[in-house]
């Protein structure tokens, strides 16, 4: 059997290609080139280096409204979630007692501090009025005690002296006294 000359009408037979293959081929080759050759000067593939992502018409014009609406929704959701928790806590009797105790303690402590401060202030004020150049807070406690004790012993000594003088005046023997002189 002799091989006949090639029939040009059957050039591609028996090979077929998927529909639209050659129409899309250019784009696919360009994509491959961009992926394969990262060193390609971007100016050479201007249309390929453009980002393929686009936004819907008017997207950016209405973007802020969308964000605002979303933020509002988020806030109201948070508030809705918060309210029941707060209510639950309020209705918890143990928590109620604890809070009351804390308040009483705080008030008591505050009252104590207030009372103490008032006394201290009063004392200091008196000392400042009577002795304007002396600050009572500056006295040493030991020194004050020592001073007090010494003043008490002086008083006792004075009393002793007075008692002995009275005794001599009342019980003195005048004749004996004259003889002695």
């Amino acid at each position, binding site marked *: *059997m*002799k*091989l006949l000359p*090639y029939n040009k009408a*059957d*050039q*591609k*037979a*028996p*090979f*077929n*290609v*998927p529909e639209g*293959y*050659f129409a899309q*081929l*250019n784009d*696919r*080759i360009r994509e*491959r*080139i961009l992926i*394969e*050759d990262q060193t*390609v*000067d971007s*100016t*050479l*593939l*201007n*249309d390929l280096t453009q980002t393929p992502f686009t936004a819907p018409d008017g997207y950016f014009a209405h973007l802020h409204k969308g964000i605002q609406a979303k933020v509002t929704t988020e806030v109201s959701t948070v508030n809705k979630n918060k309210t029941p928790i707060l209510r639950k806590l309020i209705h918890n009797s143990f928590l109620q007692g604890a809070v009351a105790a804390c308040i009483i303690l705080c008030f008591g402590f505050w009252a104590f501090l207030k009372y103490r401060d008032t006394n201290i202030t009063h004392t200091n004020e008196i000392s400042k009025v009577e002795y304007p150049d002396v600050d009572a807070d500056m006295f040493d406690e030991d020194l004050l005690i020592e001073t007090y004790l010494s003043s008490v012993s002086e008083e006792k000594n004075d009393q002793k002296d007075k008692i002995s003088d009275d005794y001599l005046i009342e019980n003195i023997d005048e004749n004996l006294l004259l003889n002695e002189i």
Partner: protein
Amino acid sequence: MAHTIDDTTILTRFRAIQSRENAFEDLINKYKERLYYHIRRMVIDHEDADDLLQDTFVKIWQNLDKFQENSSLFTWIYRIATNECLNFLRKKNKQNTSSIDDSLYLLNSLEESPYINGSELQMKLQRAILTLPEKQRIVFNMKYFEEMKYEEINEILGTSVGALKASYHHAVKKIEEYFTKD
């Protein structure tokens, strides 16, 4: 029409940076179908052909500015495509244990590819071609289907015209025998 633009114009425009991209577009449009079927006849499977075609155009893009015009643009492009196919088939051959497996791979592709649609005679011719040694198969495809001149095939394959004529002659004989036997 892009495919009517001559190679010299494409080359000139490609070398000018501002028109390079358009020139490459023209080059793709001019050669994509011819190259596709050239590759497809060698590797049979559409997916393989598609990969190799893209690889070929990537290499063309990367190297066209270094093209010295010692040969025509057409043969230079075909040489790249043919080398891509030969490398692909050799890799497939290495993966397989014997050359029989390689032929079987191509034959299976021919039988199973979803993008095959030809007459029984056309299919038989393809089966006959797949029985040929690799070099004869390539020469036969280029000469018989693509009607290339031996000088052009010589530029693409780097094989002497005499050797090409002999290869083609042997290929035709084997195919005739295949048809006679069956």
